[in-house]
């Protein structure tokens, strides 16, 4: 004789409690992001009230006179990141194509492995490599060569310090290449094989077939580039060690500079004066806002190409 089912429990069941507990853990991310926003916004209030956001276009950062202009740091951040992209995108895309289309088995595995390793190296290690290894090379070999051969361009004028915008751009490029490679590769692999095969069947060369695949993968690849940009914008330690920490805007890549992240890292603990500290937090606010927007844009683009497949987006 079948036992009758137990009467339906009213009120909280173990199941519902379990679900609520898990949901609360999930809700913690809201709390954290809210705390970040509140903390950063609240901390910038004195500076916003005193200087407004016009401080983004002022050039004098003068803690003595209590006058703060963040344009040099914005400039440094943008230029170093764009320089990094210019160097990293061709290499990254080429490698992604190589991995997705051209390489077989062991070779693909090795290059992939190398990308993983590069991505896992901590930023401080890039920093000391840039400072002790790349800087002397730039100072003694590359920068004098650039000055000698391209010195007529404002980009390559100045004294070869070894550290500066160029060094930061190169180090950043190495740091963001793995991002571009891994996402672009996944994106390319997500494009249906039929597109390539169809092109080849119609007599296209391999390069042309690759070109067609790239066109189809455009949003995703663009997304990987934008995501790499997001990483470069927020990068702190490696840049702080090699960029020269000077708050001047200069057209030359050989000159030292500073980024939003590096000025916060350098001056935060010593910001005497409420306005000084607040100005630094305002920079953090701007950095936060910019990286949020850039990352959101990137993820949107990647999502478009991969059709919302989270496992590919997770490679980001």
């Amino acid at each position, binding site marked *: 004789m079948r036992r009758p089912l137990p009467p339906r429990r009213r009120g909280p069941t173990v199941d519902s409690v379990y679900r609520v507990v898990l949901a609360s853990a999930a809700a913690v991310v809201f709390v954290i992001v809210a705390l970040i926003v509140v903390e950063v916004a609240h901390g910038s209030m004195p500076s916003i009230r005193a200087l407004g956001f016009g401080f983004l276009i002022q050039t004098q950062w003068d803690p003595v006179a209590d006058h703060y202009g963040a344009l040099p740091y914005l400039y440094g951040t943008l230029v170093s990141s764009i320089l990094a992209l210019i160097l990293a995108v061709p290499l990254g895309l080429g490698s992604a194509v190589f991995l997705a289309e051209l390489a077989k088995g062991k070779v693909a595995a090795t290059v992939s492995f190398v990308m993983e390793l590069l991505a896992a190296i901590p930023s401080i290690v890039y920093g000391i490599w840039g400072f002790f290894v790349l800087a002397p090379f730039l100072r003694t070999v590359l920068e004098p060569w650039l000055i000698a051969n391209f010195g007529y361009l404002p980009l390559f004028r100045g004294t070869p310090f070894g550290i500066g915008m160029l060094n930061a751009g190169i180090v950043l490029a190495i740091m963001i290449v793995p991002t571009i490679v891994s996402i672009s590769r996944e994106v390319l692999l997500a494009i249906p094989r039929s597109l390539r095969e169809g092109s080849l069947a119609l007599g296209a060369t391999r390069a042309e077939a690759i070109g067609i695949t790239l066109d189809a993968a455009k949003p995703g690849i663009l997304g990987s580039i934008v995501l790499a940009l997001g990483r470069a914008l927020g990068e702190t330690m490696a840049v702080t060690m090699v960029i020269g920490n*000077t708050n001047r805007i200069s057209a030359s890549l050989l000159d030292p500079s500073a980024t939003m992240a590096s000025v916060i890292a*350098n*001056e935060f*603990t*010593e910001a*005497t004066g409420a306005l000084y500290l607040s100005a630094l937090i305002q920079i953090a606010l701007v950095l936060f806002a910019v990286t949020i927007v850039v990352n959101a844009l990137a993820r949107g683009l990647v999502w478009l190409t991969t059709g919302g497949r989270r496992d590919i987006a997770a490679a980001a």
Partner: protein
Amino acid sequence: MKATRILAAALIAAALTGCTGGGKAPSVGLTGAGATFPYPIYSKWFEMYHESTGVQINYQSIGSGGGIQQLKAGTVDFGASDAPLNDEKLAEMPHPVLHIPTVAGAVVLAYNLPELTQPLQLTPQALAGIFMGTVKTWNDPAIQAANPGVVLPATAVLAVHRSDGSGTSNIFTTYLSAVSPDWKTKVGANTSVAWPAGVGAKGNEGVTGQVKQTPGSIGYVELAYAKQNSLATAKLQNSSGAFIEPSLASTTAAIRASAQALAADVRAPTVDAAGPDAYPIAALTFILVYEDQKDAAKGKEIANFLHWAIHQGQDEVEALQYARLPAEIVTVDEASIAKLTSGGKPLAAR
């Protein structure tokens, strides 16, 4: 999973028991932060003091600006700064602050010119020109004039300044403002200024490191850093016209010349001191503490340490190229230390 847990537990146990550390168990721990200028001697002092009394004093050299700020925020027990707080800044601190000079040092111009066989000589004007960016090459007439007969290279001068809020910068820019009206109007003196030229490095350590790595560079650092790293130091022309080499003797001479002014107010500037043997850029460095200590036990330890520093500690300073405090200053310090109280009750020193 189990294996990882056991491994983790073993690691923690090993960490807690197994390592050779400073022998004694810490009684009271103090945290201080600030100037990189005296860091070499402070770090020696704290190690010695720990060996003899067991008190751990953890000092982080984040720059004078950092020391002042963290003292203000209340996150450290004492701050260290080469830049004394002027009356305005003093008023901004939440409670009254005592300035306790601990050692005297010299801000020297360390340079990297391997081709020179004898020390570089610099006039104040040439120096100001280098850091203003008007003197761009080493064989500029301004520098050449002070170095007759020396072959100076035609390479670029790479000036290195501090990127952080620095008491050393304060001393240096105070000096430049005193000797160069141009500098005074265009740049001024403070812990952090808008440097017209050169590259920035963090801390005395950073500037030393940068100069060491970069041929053709010149930077201002505390004497101990230049000496410890075998960097050449420039002879600077003082107010009497003589080119003085930075040394223990010339630093002491400079401080002695300002002794009277210092006895009145320890924050008096000591740069460009009078006297034929005085080095032009010598200065005291200070430990900053609140007059009224929240924590009586910590306050007592601070008082004890400060007393040790201005007496027994002074025996160590000359080995590291810092100048001993003149007797007049020691007396002033003793009076300041006696002012330390906690909740109104004075903290008697040892």
